[in-house]
C-alpha cells in the first residue's frame, strides 16, 4: 500500500459546530452535500439491488414461482428507474460535489444553496415514486421507457411517477448548472481549461449533456401526462397521435443519458490509472477531445434503439454508421488507458483493480454494442436478453465498477483512514466473478431468442437462467462487503491514518489538502505546479 506521511495540521476551521439538523439538512458545504448524495445513492443501490434479486429469484427456474406477472413487470421497471436515476446518477453527482472543488482549487460549488436544494428534491422524488408500488393498480409496469400506449393504460399512479421523474430531472438540471458555473468560473488562478484534471472535464461535458436532454425527457413525460389525464393525443394513436414519435423523443434523451452515466466513469478511471501506474495520463488532450466527440455523437444515434419500428432504410443506415463512429473516440480512450499502464510501475490496490476491471469489461459491453448497432443483426437481437447483457456490462461493470474504484480511491481522503485493503480485494474479486456469472450467460440467452421483461420462459433457457441467478445472488451479497468496508473505514476501524497524499503516485490539488479534507478548503487561492498535474505538464 502506498501511503505517505505528510503532517499538515488538520483543523476544521469552525468557530462553532453546527447542529446535526443544520449541517445535514440545511448545510451548503460541498463535502457534506457530496456525502449525502453518496449515501443516498448507496441506499438506492441496495433498494434497486433488492428488486433485481426478486427478478432473478423468479427467473431461477421456468414457471411462476414467487411473484405474479404484474408485480414482476413493476419490479423490472422500478429496478431500472431506481438504478439509473437514484443510484448511478446521484453517485456521480456525489463524487462531483466532493471532488470537483478540491480538484480545481475552488472553495465550494458556485451555487451552494441550489446544491442543497438539488439534493433534497431527490429523497422526496423517490418516496413518491416508490409509494406507487402500494397504490391501487401498482407502480409503473411498462418498462423504464414508459412507452405509450402501454403506459397510458396504467392506473392513476402514473401521475405520481411522472411527477417524481420531473423532480429528478429538475434536480439533475440544477446540479448540472451548478457544475458548469463552478468549473467555468471558479478554477484556481492559472488552471486553464486544458490544465484541468480529467474528472472535472468529463463532468463539465456531462453537465452540458444533462442540460441538453433532461428537458427533452421532461417534455415527453409532460405530453404523456396530458395524454393520460387531459385528453390530448400527442402519442395516443386512437386520437390521431403517434406512439413512435414518443420513442424518438424519449431516445433523444435516452441515448445521451447512457453517456451521462458513463462519461464521469471515464473521468474517474482516468484519474486512478495514472496514480497506480506512476505515470502521467497518456494522451490527455486526446482524452478531452474524445470525451467531447462521444458527447456530440450521442445526440445523433438515438434511433438505433428502435431499428425495428419501421424506419426508412436511409435512416437506419445513418443511425447504424453514426453509432459505429462512437467506437473511434471510445477506442482512443481504451488505447490511452492501456498506454498509460504500459511500462508503468504498476501496483494493484483495490481502486486500480476496479479500474482495470472497468477497462476490460466495459470494452466487452462496447463490443456487444457494436453488434447491436448493425441493423440486420439488431433485428435478431432486439428486445432479447442480448440487449440486457449488453447494457448491464456497460452500466454495472462500467459505471458501477468505476464508482467502486472512485469510492476506494477517495475514501481515505474523505475519512482520514485507510480502508481494509484485504476486504477491498475480496470485494473486487467476488464482484468480478459473480458479475460475469450473472451477465455473460445472458448473451447466450438472447442469441437463443429469450425475450427480455418476461417472468416465465421456455424450458430450453433453464440452465443459463439458473447460472445467471446464482451470479446475481453472489454479486448482491458481495456488495454487502462493500457496505461493511465503507462503514468500517468511516469509523476508523483500520486504525491506519493517512497523510495528505494518500497514494504515492497521486497528483493534483485534492492531494494537497489534509486527510480527512477539512470542512473548508481553498479559502485562499492555491498555487499549483504544472508538473504536479495528474496528466503531467501540458504547457510544452
Amino acid at each position, binding site marked *: 500500500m502506498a501511503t505517505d506521511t505528510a503532517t499538515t495540521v488538520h483543523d476544521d476551521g469552525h468557530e462553532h459546530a453546527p447542529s446535526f439538523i443544520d449541517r445535514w439538512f440545511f448545510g451548503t458545504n460541498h463535502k457534506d452535500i457530496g456525502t449525502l448524495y453518496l449515501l443516498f445513492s448507496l441506499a438506492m443501490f441496495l433498494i434497486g439491488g433488492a428488486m433485481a434479486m426478486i427478478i432473478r429469484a423468479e427467473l431461477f427456474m421456468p414457471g411462476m414461482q414467487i411473484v405474479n406477472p404484474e408485480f414482476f413487470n413493476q419490479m423490472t421497471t422500478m429496478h431500472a428507474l431506481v438504478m439509473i436515476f437514484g443510484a448511478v446518477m446521484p453517485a456521480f453527482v456525489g463524487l462531483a460535489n466532493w471532488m470537483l472543488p478540491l480538484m480545481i482549487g475552488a*472553495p465550494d460549488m458556485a451555487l451552494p444553496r441550489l446544491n442543497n436544494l438539488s439534493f433534497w428534491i431527490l429523497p422526496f422524488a423517490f418516496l413518491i415514486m416508490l409509494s406507487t408500488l402500494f397504490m391501487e393498480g401498482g407502480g409503473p409496469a411498462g418498462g423504464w421507457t414508459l412507452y405509450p400506449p402501454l403506459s397510458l393504460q396504467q392506473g392513476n399512479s402514473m401521475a405520481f411517477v411522472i411527477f417524481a421523474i420531473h423532480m429528478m430531472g429538475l434536480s439533475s438540471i440544477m446540479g448540472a448548472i451548478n457544475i458548469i*458555473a463552478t468549473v467555468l468560473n471558479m478554477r484556481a488562478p492559472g488552471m486553464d481549461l486544458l490544465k484541468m484534471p480529467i474528472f472535472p472535464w468529463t463532468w463539465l461535458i456531462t453537465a452540458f449533456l444533462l442540460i441538453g*436532454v433532461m428537458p427533452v425527457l421532461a*417534455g415527453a413525460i409532460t405530453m404523456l401526462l396530458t395524454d393520460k389525464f387531459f385528453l390530448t393525443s*400527442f402519442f395516443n394513436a386512437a386520437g390521431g397521435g403517434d406512439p413512435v414519435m414518443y420513442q424518438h423523443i424519449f431516445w433523444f434523451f435516452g441515448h445521451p443519458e447512457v453517456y451521462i452515466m458513463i462519461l464521469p466513469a471515464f473521468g474517474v478511471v482516468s484519474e486512478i490509472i495514472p496514480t497506480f501506474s506512476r505515470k502521467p495520463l497518456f494522451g490527455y488532450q486526446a482524452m478531452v477531445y474524445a470525451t467531447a466527440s462521444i458527447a456530440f455523437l450521442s445526440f445523433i444515434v438515438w434511433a438505433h434503439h428502435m431499428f425495428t419500428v419501421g424506419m426508412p432504410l436511409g435512416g437506419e443506415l445513418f443511425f447504424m454508421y453514426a453509432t459505429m463512429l462512437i467506437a473511434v473516440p471510445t477506442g482512443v480512450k481504451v488505447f490511452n488507458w492501456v498506454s498509460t499502464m504500459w511500462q508503468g510501475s504498476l501496483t494493484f490496490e483495490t481502486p486500480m483493480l476496479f479500474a482495470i476491471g472497468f477497462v476490460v469489461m466495459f470494452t466487452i459491453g462496447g463490443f456487444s454494442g457494436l453488434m447491436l448497432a448493425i441493423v440486420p443483426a439488431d433485428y435478431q437481437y432486439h428486445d432479447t436478453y442480448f440487449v440486457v447483457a449488453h447494457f448491464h456490462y456497460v452500466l454495472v461493470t462500467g459505471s458501477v465498477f468505476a464508482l467502486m474504484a472512485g469510492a476506494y480511491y477517495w475514501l481515505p481522503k474523505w475519512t482520514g483512514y485507510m480502508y481494509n485493503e484485504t476486504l477491498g480485494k475480496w470485494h473486487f474479486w467476488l464482484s468480478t466473478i459473480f458479475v460475469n456469472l450473472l451477465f455473460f450467460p445472458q448473451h447466450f440467452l438472447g442469441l437463443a431468442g429469450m425475450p427480455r421483461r418476461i417472468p416465465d420462459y421456455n424450458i430450453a433457457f433453464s440452465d443459463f437462467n439458473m447460472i445467471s441467478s446464482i451470479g446475481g445472488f453472489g454479486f448482491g451479497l458481495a456488495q454487502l462487503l462493500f457496505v461493511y468496508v465503507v462503514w468500517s473505514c468511516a469509523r476508523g476501524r483500520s486504525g491506519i491514518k493517512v497523510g495528505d497524499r494518500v497514494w504515492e503516485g497521486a497528483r493534483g490539488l485534492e492531494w494537497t489538502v489534509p486527510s480527512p479534507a477539512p470542512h473548508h478548503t481553498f*479559502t485562499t487561492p492555491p*498555487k499549483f505546479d504544472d508538473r504536479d498535474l495528474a496528466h503531467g505538464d501540458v504547457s510544452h
Partner: protein
Amino acid sequence: MIATSPTATSAIDAEHGADSAGAGLSWQETGLMSDKKNTRGIRRTVTVLVIVALLVYLGFMWQTAISQ
C-alpha cells in the same frame, strides 16, 4: 462565515516552498477572480443555461404539437 485556519494553500506552500504568488491572499485580492467578476460570471452562466433548458423543454413540446 468561513473561519480560516491552516488552509490548503499553506499545505501547498509546505510542499512546494513558499514561492506561491497567490498564497495568503484572498480570492478577491488576487485580482484574477474578484468577487464581483466571479459573481457576474456565475450569474451569466446560470442565466444562459436556464434559458437553454427552458427552450429545449418548450421547443420539443412545440415541435411535437405542430407535427401531429
